[in-house]
């Protein structure tokens, strides 16, 4: 049994310590909002927050996650998260939607650290997250939109 800090709670998981957090979430805990895309940290569909930083969960073994605070799309909350998801609605970002959990997690981490990102900042922060449908233009727009809304409500 391993202990895990997940979405603000401490839970125990019966999975072998080498199991990637992605599969602990999806199979052992039934939390399927975090997606499997490549298994090699090349597409970042599996993005979660590890101590507030956007990181991939497909290559993160359960043993390495112990002692850290993990947040998934299911547990994403707060002012920035709400602004990001409202922006996703407003700009109508998703197509197939499969990558969007990861995109939203990456965008929320970016805006938490950088309230007013430039296009270059967005490129830098989001280039790890693939979107096969090609919603990049709207993702960029939505991040700018969320930043503006956050600034206006600050």
């Amino acid at each position: 049994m391993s202990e895990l800090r997940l979405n603000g709670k401490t839970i125990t998981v019966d999975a072998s310590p080498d199991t990637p957090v992605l599969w602990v979430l999806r199979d052992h805990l039934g939390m399927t909002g975090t997606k499997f895309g490549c298994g090699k940290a090349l597409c970042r569909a599996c993005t979660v927050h590890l101590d507030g930083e956007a990181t991939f969960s497909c290559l993160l073994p359960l043993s390495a996650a112990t002692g850290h605070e993990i947040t998934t799309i299911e547990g994403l909350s707060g002012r920035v998260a709400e602004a990001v998801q409202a922006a996703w609605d407003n700009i109508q970002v998703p197509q197939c939607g499969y990558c969007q959990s990861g995109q939203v997690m990456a965008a929320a981490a970016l805006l938490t650290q950088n309230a007013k990102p430039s296009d270059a900042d967005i490129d830098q922060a989001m280039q790890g997250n693939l979107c096969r449908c090609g919603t990049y233009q709207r993702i960029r727009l939505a991040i700018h939109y969320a930043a503006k809304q956050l600034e206006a409500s600050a």
Partner: protein
Amino acid sequence: MITPFDSSRRTFLKVSALAGGGLILGLRLGRSEEAAAQPAAFEPNAWITVYPDGAVSLVCPRNEMGQDVYTSLIMLLAEELAVDPRQIKVEEAAVNPVYLNRLMGAQITGGSTSIRDAWDPLRQAGATARNMLVNAAAAQWSVPAAECRAENGQVIHGSNTLPYAALADAAARQPLPKDVALKQASEFSVIGKPLPRLDGAGKARGQAVFGIDVKQPGMVYAALAQCPVLGGKVASFDTGAAQKRAGVRKVVDIGEGVAVIADHYWEAHSALADIKIQWDEGPAAHLDTNAIYATLERSKDKPGTIIKQAGDATAALAKSKQIKARYTSQMLAHVALEPLNCLALVSANGVDVWASTQYPQGAQAAAAQAAGVEPEQVLIHAQLIGGGFGRRLDVDFIRQAVAIAKAVPGTPVKLIWTREDDVTHDFPRPPSLHLLHAALEGGRVAAFTHKMISPSVTARMFPSAVKDGNDYFMIEGVIDFTYDIPNLDMRTVIQEIGIPVGYWRSVSNALNAFAIESFVDELAHAAHRDPVEFRLAMLDKQPRQRAVLERAAKDAGFKARAHKGRAFGVASMQCYDTHIAMVAELSGKAKKVRLEKLTIAVDCGIAVHPDQVIAQLQGGVVTGLINALRSKVTIKGGRIQQSNFDTFPIPRMPQVPPIEIALIPSTEKPGGMGEAGVPLVAPAIANALFALTGKRIRALPLEDAGISFE
């Protein structure tokens, strides 16, 4: 919930098959149980149910893979039914002949046909139901139906209103109206209007359930090792320590591979490494990319099938100086972001399949064959698709999941492919060779010939649809040739290459458009004409095509000659009953260029959901960049050499330029929009490269010619 497979379901299928495309009561699978609980539901046809509690559910007959059918098809129903699409529940269609896609001849989502196929029947379904609800209300009020109108889920007469919920029971007893009038475009309140995607909010919150996310009680997982050589089979294997690993339930030989079934996916995946498999590699074992192209080359003198002819191209070419060119396109992987997966349950009652599929009818047939049951004993529960791009028209992963699940009857098994499985066992986009000849007279094209040589996807998947060597999907991009040229000869040659190939978003439109639109550009330069003016001169009979070409050129600020290190390239075509033109703007020097912008003008007739038409173009361009820039599948020893997003790169955010789109208003019937954004990206960029560098690139991907795109 697993519902037992009962005989009444079988009856439904048979009854509806007899009834063809007509209106059928109680059609949907499982409806009989629900109907028993709620006897007064109004179910005038296979798409609409109005429940007495006020709930309205509409069936989406096509599979949602990002292209917006889940919203745009529902808009067609909601428009005529006079309900707010945001207030209704959307159901995925079961496999049933009533949901046949008439443009494809099967229950299939592809070919940019969903809106075009549904435009009349779904609006008629909505109007029929509305008519019956209005008649029921009129009868209740004892007023003429003509004095009543329906609006936002209720029938109105003067100051009287009745919600549909209150009319469900009475409407169900109304006779089916024969002829119903559809709304005029000026009366539309849903079609063409803004509406958030009905599946959008859930997708931004991790709540959308894709095939890979489906859960069933007692579900276990499977990982599968397949022969690295395409088409190879298991010769023998040694399970080693796999069966002793924690969580592992069973090791299963399904012929095309060896699967591990385990309690959790990671356990199944990890245990595969313990299994030593000897493969019978089969006939593809010595195949490589060069041999594939050599095979196409050897067929270049075959006469092929005539697709389009005018005048006498042979004679016209013989009279003048010929301009010749040879173009090639590469093989490509689909790499939908949701890896292929399928949850299957084989039990004494039949087979249940939960899968992201573009082809539920084919999935049903494949599952039936794998389980050794009749198709009507298979229930397909179609799920939201995490990207299709044509890959999910194939049902290999469904066949495999059922074959694996058959080894553990009564236990649902979810097979999940890795990304490596997905790339190395793809059905690649067909490679193609194009031979073109033309003659110019007085600055105009006097003769034009094109021969496309390529393997046929259709011959593999729908062999009876290929007649006299004519694959309907190979002629895309040629059959709707827009230019008025007096002597024309357009042919296709089917040449198989030793591995199976698959439909890839925009199919042959992308292959043929790269060759044809690049070659037309060559002709414009040979004639010393502006490439836009040159095209417009051949479009006198094509006002819609002219309009999009003029608009794209204007919006882009198109200039025929490079200026201050910037250059433009244009391409134009009709596809899927949609007219489109694209301009690429490049900057940079001979070896290193930057894609500055893509400008598009499109006339797709009535845009049912305009914002999502735009979205399809934005996304289509990114798929077009996969085709244009650097991605390719290559074969060595019968193996696909690429395996993940490192070796098969797709565009990342910084690599996608600004995309400007003009949607031309139209009252024509809707055209297809799911793929139209893809084909012109490569020729527009290749033509801009020529304008910038003077180098004509005639093979995809463009970076293979030693150019790099920033």
